[in-house]
């Protein structure tokens, strides 16, 4: 396994000063849209098989097989099929999709067009979060060019019989619209409330029709796979997590930024080789793939960053988006967790009680600990709340609550001493209750800071 040349970032210079936005002409001049032309000569089943054989797993967080997801779309077409591109990137620590859209928007569009061929999609919506003003403008311009160049529109893809429309849909500031069914609701003009599954989007997605939903980076992997084949793709990464991956490095490192390497590099390599080493002190912990995945502790630098090792040896939910937030020894882990939990309390869509109330209570408990009034049972309470929310215990509709749970679980367990020091056994309960209750009966939402 080796990573010898940039794949997703082949048009993005490592030197920030030399980076250049590639519109259509630059894209084609550097080999763009060759894969789409090749895909036009393949059958839908062949495209799906190629993507499945490559072992490509979703880059949006869940790591689900991209090929398999395509195969769930009904072969026999009874109406419109849709593709929704998930460019809602709002998971704290994640900033890789922005990077791709900023410099190489057509690689996404080529991935969209190839995926549309494979699943007989008629309309593709690129759902971009509303705060990405620049990326929305870039993508809209790229889509406009693609219409002019005969990729999208009723003339058919490069004059073929496959017709594809493609539109940018602008979000409006809600993390939960990154959850795939929340995204579909937002697309339909409703609140971004995740749907109960089944039915899954592949059967009844946008406007009740079969819909493929993929992350930006996942789709950007598709053109190189078509061009160079699954065997080549598998020369990178690990057997169960093949391919290249963008690692978003932020926090206390000397050279934060997005770096491309293969899946399965170690955390130590990501920190010391990719992003220039620790800044301001020794390593204390790293959020491994957006805060929902939890945190890797100080002694876990040897964990391999792929979809399995982070989970099975690292004790986190998974690799997630590979957006790493690196923290040095001076970081207050209670504050860090409180920041994460506040995020969930703020972003919970409010449909499920364990998520809505649980996250708000966890935030209040952490506020109390930070105010110097922590009690030993606060930690028990945090761990109890954490265990009872999420789709894994089966109490919520979507995975946002699992994010709250895993962040809390990993922080409290891996830095237990630090938490326990602020939550002494002998603090008089009476006083705690008196003050605690005053604290926690402030109306919901009156203090979201």
């Amino acid at each position, binding site marked *: 396994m080796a990573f010898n040349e940039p794949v997703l970032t082949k048009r993005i210079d490592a030197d920030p000063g030399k980076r250049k*936005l590639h*519109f259509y002409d630059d894209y084609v001049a550097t080999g763009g849209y060759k894969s789409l032309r090749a895909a036009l000569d393949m059958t839908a089943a062949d495209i799906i098989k190629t993507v499945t054989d490559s072992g490509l797993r979703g880059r949006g967080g869940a790591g689900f097989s991209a090929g398999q997801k395509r195969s769930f779309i009904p072969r026999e077409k009874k109406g*419109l099929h849709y593709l929704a591109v998930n460019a809602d*990137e*709002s*998971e*704290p*620590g*994640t*900033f890789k*999709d*922005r990077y791709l859209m900023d410099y190489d928007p057509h690689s996404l569009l080529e991935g969209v067009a190839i995926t549309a061929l494979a699943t007989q999609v008629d309309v593709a919506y690129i759902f971009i*979060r*509303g*705060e990405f*003003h*620049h990326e929305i*403008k870039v993508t*809209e*311009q790229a889509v*406009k060019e693609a219409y002019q160049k005969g990729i999208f529109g009723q003339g058919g893809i490069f004059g073929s019989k496959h017709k594809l*429309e493609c*539109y940018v*849909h*602008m*979000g*409006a*500031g*809600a*993390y939960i619209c990154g959850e795939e069914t929340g995204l579909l609701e*937002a*697309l*339909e*003009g*409703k*609140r*971004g409330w995740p749907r109960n599954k089944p039915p899954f989007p592949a059967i009844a997605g946008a*406007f009740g029709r079969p819909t493929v939903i993929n992350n930006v980076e996942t789709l950007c992997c598709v053109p190189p796979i078509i061009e160079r084949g699954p065997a080549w793709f598998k020369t990178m990464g690990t057997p169960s997590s093949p391919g290249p991956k963008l690692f*978003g*490095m*932020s*926090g206390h490192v000397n050279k*934060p*930024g*997005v770096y491309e390497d293969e899946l399965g590099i170690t955390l130590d390599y990501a920190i010391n080789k990719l992003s220039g080493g620790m800044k301001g002190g020794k390593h204390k912990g790293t959020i491994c793939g957006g*805060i929902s995945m939890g945190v890797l502790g100080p002694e876990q630098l040897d964990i391999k960053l792929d979809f399995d090792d982070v989970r099975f040896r690292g004790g986190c939910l998974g690799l997630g988006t590979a*957006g790493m*937030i690196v923290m040095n020894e001076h*970081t207050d882990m209670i504050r*860090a967790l409180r*920041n994460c939990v506040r*995020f969930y309390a*703020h972003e919970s*869509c*409010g449909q499920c009680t364990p998520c*809505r109330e649980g996250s708000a209570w966890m935030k209040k408990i952490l506020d109390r600990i930070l105010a110097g009034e922590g009690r030993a049972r606060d930690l028990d309470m945090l761990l109890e709340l954490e265990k009872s929310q999420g789709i894994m215990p089966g109490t919520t509709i979507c995975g946002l609550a699992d994010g709250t749970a895993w962040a809390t679980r990993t922080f409290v367990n891996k830095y237990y001493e630090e938490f326990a020091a602020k939550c002494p056994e002998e603090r008089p309960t009476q006083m705690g209750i008196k003050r605690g209750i005053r604290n926690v009966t402030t109306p*919901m*939402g009156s203090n*979201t*800071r």
Partner: protein
Amino acid sequence: MAWITENRRTATVERRSEPYLTEEIKAGLTAKYFPRYPNKRAVLLPALHEIQHAYNWIPVQAMEEIAAFLEMSPAEVLDTATFYEEYWLRPKGQYLLQVCRSLSCEICDSRKLTDHLIKKLKIEEGESTADGRFTLVELECLGACGTAPVMLINDVLHENLTVETVDELIAKLPASANDYHDPAVTWDEGDGH
């Protein structure tokens, strides 16, 4: 907090005689967005964005007009509009300063920026200056963690900020926000296709 409710029974709706949703905006929405979706309701998010773009916020009367235009009930429009934080259902300043407060930014001292702006503008987080020029808010992850701390000023993202660079940015803002654009957009935006 999308699920915070508000007592609207006693709320009075301010009205004006001319519509917010002008014939021109309607024509624009019809031409650009109706062909994109299989039903009218899906045009709601774009319609709310258009109104906010035109008036800098979304008055209740405008929501009623959108409801009539998209053949929905006003309650459904309100239901959707209140969910999304980007929609301002009360007026905001000409320049919206949004400082990211999520983890990467927090550990890179974003709090200093907010505290500085609170002192500088003499407003609390969430408030606007009396002259209507600035509104200051903190928001969750802007997806630019590698260049933390970051802040959005209207549509433009500013990265790797310090208290000093924030002061410079603010001093350089044009008198009218209409003249404030993303310098990296060098192509003619037109109005889509």
